[in-house]
């Protein structure tokens, strides 16, 4: 565990290195000491033998064993001495002391020298002195030195460990702990950029300083991002509010195109309207106009919804004005075809190279003043006629208006229906029929719509819109609205 800490790792490197180098120094020192001491010892041995060979010459000459013994005894007192032998010229021991009969510790530790007797000019070998020394005291001294060295080494290692511990804690451990604490605080709170209370010119000081600086910069960046986000949100809200206000105003314009209840009542005795653009404004619109000998009641569903759809309805409104003028002498079918022509031209879809693919579904009812019939033309729109809780469907022409693939000379069928005050006539856009909802996530469908109409058609017209809406919204459930919805109903 300790070896995983920085201190442990440092010591794991320091201690063996210091140990090895100090031991090496001590070893070299001891080796040198040993060699010097040994040379000195051998030198001493040499001078001793030299002196003795001379000193003993007289006594050996005279066979004065007492003097010889006394002299040898004297030198044997020296602590370096191990053994000593004095021989006569025949090689017989005159005196032998110490471990003379055992081999020397080292060959160099025993030295023999002839005893030479000088008489005037004549000299003669009369014996031999052999002295042996011991290296014990050198070993003992080395041992003492080693013990001392060991203590020094131990003290050194203890001091080194302590120094490492203290410096690591002071100069590394503390800033690291502070840094760790700061990082943990920061993990909890991105914006905390408290400067770390540590100043130093060493590397760690630089690291700590860089970290603090980084945090402060990050905090500054975060603040800028937050400001920016807040600013963006504000802009978005502002922009949304502007757009909303703009669309609300557009809705007012679009609604101003809708006929007023008074205008409607000039055409028919009773009516009901359910008109609900999906996005405040939409592509569904209905009209009520004086035309020829009666009134036109029209319901249109232009491609698209929202603002593009609404623009289309306005284009359509102006086209209706012109078409009504153009078709003053024709029937309802001619009027429808005229609308088709004008709208194709307005959208540039009459050239065959149009970039747009727009058009509309349109239902037109012509109610003559006091007339016996109601004329109906449907361009991809049907008329529903309810009477006594029974609903019948009058199918319009299958093609819509203005779409590029609809031929220029497309004819629309005009249905002449008996004008009967007991009947209620309805036109509807596909927004209601195609709304997805219900438990099976399915379109509302014509059958459900017909059943709904049959049920509500017996109610007073004034209550019908709310009732249809209630049933429709219930069916829609949590599903999003898919399209604009419109239902226009009237009685003569």
């Amino acid at each position, binding site marked *: 565990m300790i070896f995983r800490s920085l201190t442990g790792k440092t010591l794991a490197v320091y201690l063996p290195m210091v140990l090895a180098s100090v031991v090496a120094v001590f070893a070299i020192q001891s080796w040198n000491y040993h060699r010097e001491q040994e040379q000195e010892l051998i030198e001493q041995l040499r001078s001793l033998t030299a002196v003795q060979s001379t000193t003993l010459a007289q006594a050996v000459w005279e066979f004065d064993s007492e003097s010889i013994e006394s002299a040898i005894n004297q030198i044997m007192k020296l602590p370096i001495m191990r053994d000593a032998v004095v021989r006569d010229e025949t090689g017989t021991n005159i005196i032998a002391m110490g471990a003379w009969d055992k081999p020397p510790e080292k060959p160099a530790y025993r030295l023999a020298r002839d005893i030479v007797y000088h008489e005037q000019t004549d000299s003669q070998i009369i014996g031999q002195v052999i002295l042996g020394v011991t290296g014990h005291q050198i070993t003992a001294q080395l041992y003492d030195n080693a013990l001392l060295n060991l203590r020094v080494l131990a003290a050194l290692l203890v001091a080194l460990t302590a120094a490492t511990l203290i410096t690591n804690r002071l100069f590394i451990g503390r800033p690291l702990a502070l840094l760790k604490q700061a990082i943990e605080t920061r993990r909890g709170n991105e914006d905390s950029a408290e400067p770390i209370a540590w100043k130093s010119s060493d590397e760690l000081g630089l690291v700590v300083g860089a970290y603090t600086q980084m945090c402060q910069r990050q905090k500054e960046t975060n603040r800028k991002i937050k400001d920016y986000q807040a600013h963006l949100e504000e802009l978005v809200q502002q922009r949304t509010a502007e757009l909303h206000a703009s669309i609300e105003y557009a809705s007012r314009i679009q609604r101003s195109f809708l006929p007023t209840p008074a205008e409607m009542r000039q055409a028919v005795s009773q009516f009901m309207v359910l008109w609900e653009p999906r996005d405040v404004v939409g592509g569904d619109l209905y009209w009520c106009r004086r035309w020829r000998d009666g009134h036109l009641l029209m319901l249109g569903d232009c491609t698209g919804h929202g603002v593009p759809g609404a623009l289309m309805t306005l284009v359509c409104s102006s086209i209706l004005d012109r078409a009504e003028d153009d078709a003053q002498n024709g029937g309802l079918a001619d009027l429808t075809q005229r609308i088709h022509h004008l709208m194709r031209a307005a959208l540039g879809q009459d050239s065959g190279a149009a970039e747009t693919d727009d058009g509309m579904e349109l239902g037109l009812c012509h109610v003559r003043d006091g007339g016996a019939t109601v004329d109906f033309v449907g361009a991809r729109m049907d008329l529903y006629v309810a009477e006594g809780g029974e609903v019948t469907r009058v199918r319009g022409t299958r093609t819509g208006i203005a779409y590029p693939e609809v031929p220029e000379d497309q004819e629309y069928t005009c249905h002449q229906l008996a004008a009967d005050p007991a009947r209620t006539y309805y036109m509807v856009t596909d927004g209601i029929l195609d709304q997805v909802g219900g438990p099976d996530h399915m379109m509302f469908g014509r059958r459900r719509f017909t059943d709904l109409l049959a049920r509500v058609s017996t109610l007073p017209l004034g209550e019908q819109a709310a009732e249809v809406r209630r049933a429709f919204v219930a069916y829609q459930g949590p599903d999003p609205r898919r*399209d604009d919805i419109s239902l226009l109903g009237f009685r003569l």
Partner: protein
Amino acid sequence: MSDLLFSATENCPGITFKAAEGTLLIAGESYSEEAAAALEKTIQHVRGHLDDRPEGTLSVTFALIYFNSSSARKIMTLMTTLDEAAEGGADVRVAWHYRPGDESMAELGEDFGEDLEHAAFSLVEEDS
């Protein structure tokens, strides 16, 4: 031609075209600009595929829940493309699936089917 894949979203249908097998499946709801764009890309892709194989076979399956008028326009264009290819000798089969009780989807399929003169068309009520 390569395969084509659009993942279904709330308002965009899942579109899977497999060139090797000659199959195209369009399923789900289709009522956004993205949906119309995806259908437009599919039309271009299928057109390219059929141009390369005038005698090839293509089996197209629609299994839609809802589509708005602009998607309906794209589906119509796709049907026209398929019918033209069938006229030119390709073996094109269109299957229009609808769920039991979804008479609107059945009617819409019927309408599209009536416009096909050369491609084989079948109206398929799915198992409930």
